């Protein structure tokens, strides 16, 4: 029944049945037909899956990000990024990467990043002569930084489902995230010269100091959140609540952009989007209860060790598997279902669970902007008002850049593990 359980999910997902419903109904079917566990375990596991303090960081970080966007932080970050990299040729495209990098540190989601930044920069890039599809491709690929720079919702999920320290994961992801950002920046600088674009990108940018002054409140947010977590002052969940209050103060009192009506609509929007994510989390907890009772992790581990004899071979195989899964399956569901199964196998091969988490999240983040099913891709195309097929040729080089980064991140565990080893000796 073990493998059947996983395999049964595929036709459910493919039939367009919502992910949370698919996971619960597949679990119900296997409980009913293959075990004698009473079905009352269904609501019980759904409840237990949500009744967790670390998970509460998810709605709160979504809320903080939404508040920051409504408070007008996006324009300010764009101005700052433009003041830093706007002068080089291709500066506007570079601004997009840099703004996403900064925005990622207040928002845990890459879709939110795509909407907030893309709405400003895609039209700006198009106005400066970039082809629309290329502008959307740049935005979709930069936005993956949203989940790679802390706070990151997928990393919280990985931490919760595998009992790995969220603080460690947040520190571990900083250098790989920066590394991908730098790789994208370098690639863009070369690529605009090849394509002969981006000659007038420096138009109407603000002076660095003015841009810094105007965005100071916003860029202090990551300092407060991360400083608080690493300094051991508060837990990630408490940090997320502090972030919400900070965003309220900055958006409402300092920038004076949040009206009461805005506030209500932000809270409503957050209630909707966190409910959709939390339902998947809740459903996945029922599923992992079943997986935990089966021998699937042990069997998989035995199979993998009999087929693959080196750590690198294992990691390559995992990357290929995750890349394919990431193309189709939604990120949080993929992490919640696969991480508890794969992490014990990875540990058998001597892979550090923190490093493995980073590999998993980078890989699934890649899946967010690869067709056929990439949430960033859809968001960027929606902002650019473009059909998804049109973006694909422009997207390929960016996908290749991130794949190369992924290989380097996989190959050199130090890139992920060095920073946490300094902070958590």
């Amino acid at each position, binding site marked *: 029944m073990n493998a059947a359980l996983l395999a049964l999910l595929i036709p459910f997902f493919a039939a367009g049945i919502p992910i949370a419903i698919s996971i619960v109904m597949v679990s119900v079917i296997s409980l009913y037909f293959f075990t004698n566990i009473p079905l009352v375990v269904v609501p019980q596991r759904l409840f237990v899956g949500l009744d967790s303090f670390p998970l*509460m960081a998810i709605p709160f970080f979504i809320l903080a990000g939404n508040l920051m966007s409504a408070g007008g932080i996006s324009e300010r970050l764009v101005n700052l990024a433009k003041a830093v990299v706007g002068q080089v040729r291709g500066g506007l495209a570079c601004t997009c990467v840099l703004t996403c990098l900064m925005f990622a540190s207040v928002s845990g989601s890459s879709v939110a990043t795509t909407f907030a930044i893309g709405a400003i920069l895609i039209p700006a890039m198009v106005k400066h002569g970039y082809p629309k599809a290329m502008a959307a491709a740049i935005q979709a690929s930069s936005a993956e930084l949203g989940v790679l720079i802390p706070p990151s919702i997928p990393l919280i999920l990985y931490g919760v489902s595998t009992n790995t320290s969220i603080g460690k994961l947040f520190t571990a992801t900083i250098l790989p995230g920066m590394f991908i950002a730098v790789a994208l920046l370098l690639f863009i600088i070369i690529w605009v010269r090849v394509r002969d674009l981006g000659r007038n990108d420096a138009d109407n940018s603000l002076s660095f100091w003015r841009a810094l002054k105007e965005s100071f409140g916003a860029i202090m947010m990551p300092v407060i959140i991360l400083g608080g977590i690493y300094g051991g002052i508060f837990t990630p969940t*408490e940090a997320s*609540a502090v972030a919400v209050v900070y965003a309220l103060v900055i958006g409402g009192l300092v920038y004076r952009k949040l009206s009461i009506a805005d506030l209500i609509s932000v809270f409503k929007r957050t209630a909707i989007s966190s*409910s959709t994510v939390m339902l998947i989390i809740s459903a996945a907890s029922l599923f992992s209860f079943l997986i935990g009772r089966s021998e699937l992790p042990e069997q998989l581990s035995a199979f993998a060790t009999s087929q693959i004899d080196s750590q690198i071979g294992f990691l390559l195989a995992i990357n290929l598997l995750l890349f394919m899964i990431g193309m189709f399956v939604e990120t949080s569901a993929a992490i919640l279902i696969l991480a508890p199964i794969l992490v014990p196998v990875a540990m058998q091969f001597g892979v550090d669970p923190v490093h493995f988490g980073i590999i998993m999240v980078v890989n699934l983040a890649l899946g967010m902007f690869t067709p*056929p099913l990439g949430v960033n891709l859809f968001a960027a195309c929606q902002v650019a008002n473009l059909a998804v097929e049109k973006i694909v040729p422009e997207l390929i080089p960016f996908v290749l850049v991130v794949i190369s980064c992924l290989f380097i991140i996989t190959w050199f565990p130090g890139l992920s593990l060095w920073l946490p080893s300094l902070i958590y000796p």
Partner: protein
Amino acid sequence: MLATFDTAYNRFLLLAAALLLAIAVSMTFYQVVTRFVLTDPSPWSELAARALIIWSVFLAMAVVIRRGDLIAIDMVFNFFPAIKRFWLRCWVLLWIFAFLLILLYFGIEITIRVYHQSVSLLDVSMSWLYLAIPVGAGLSLISLFFRLLELYAEHRKVRATL
């Protein structure tokens, strides 16, 4: 009449879910304040915040279902002509219906079963927490009905254009 109820019903549920979220954030922030400013951490705020989030998730579920916002891999709809999509959507709704019935039925069972357990540190029965599941499922069944009505209205429009 039915449409007015539908709008008011969803507006009320969403407002309630948003309010619970706001209270949960305030409580968690309050916990940080009590620990640092008053150096006397409040023991119940974390538990209460957790309960509020669970209620918020299951109340918002009804609105999510009404809007058809549950996250799904819906590529399959592109392979069907507009006129056939309605039946495919009904098939999906049927699964959601089954899901909600299970949540409602067994949710009530577990709510009754945990009646005598009380939440540690708080003097309330666990039932108040578990109750979110059958209540959310029951409210969602009503939403599901309105979702079906809306999809059917759209379907009739598509059919009329043929």
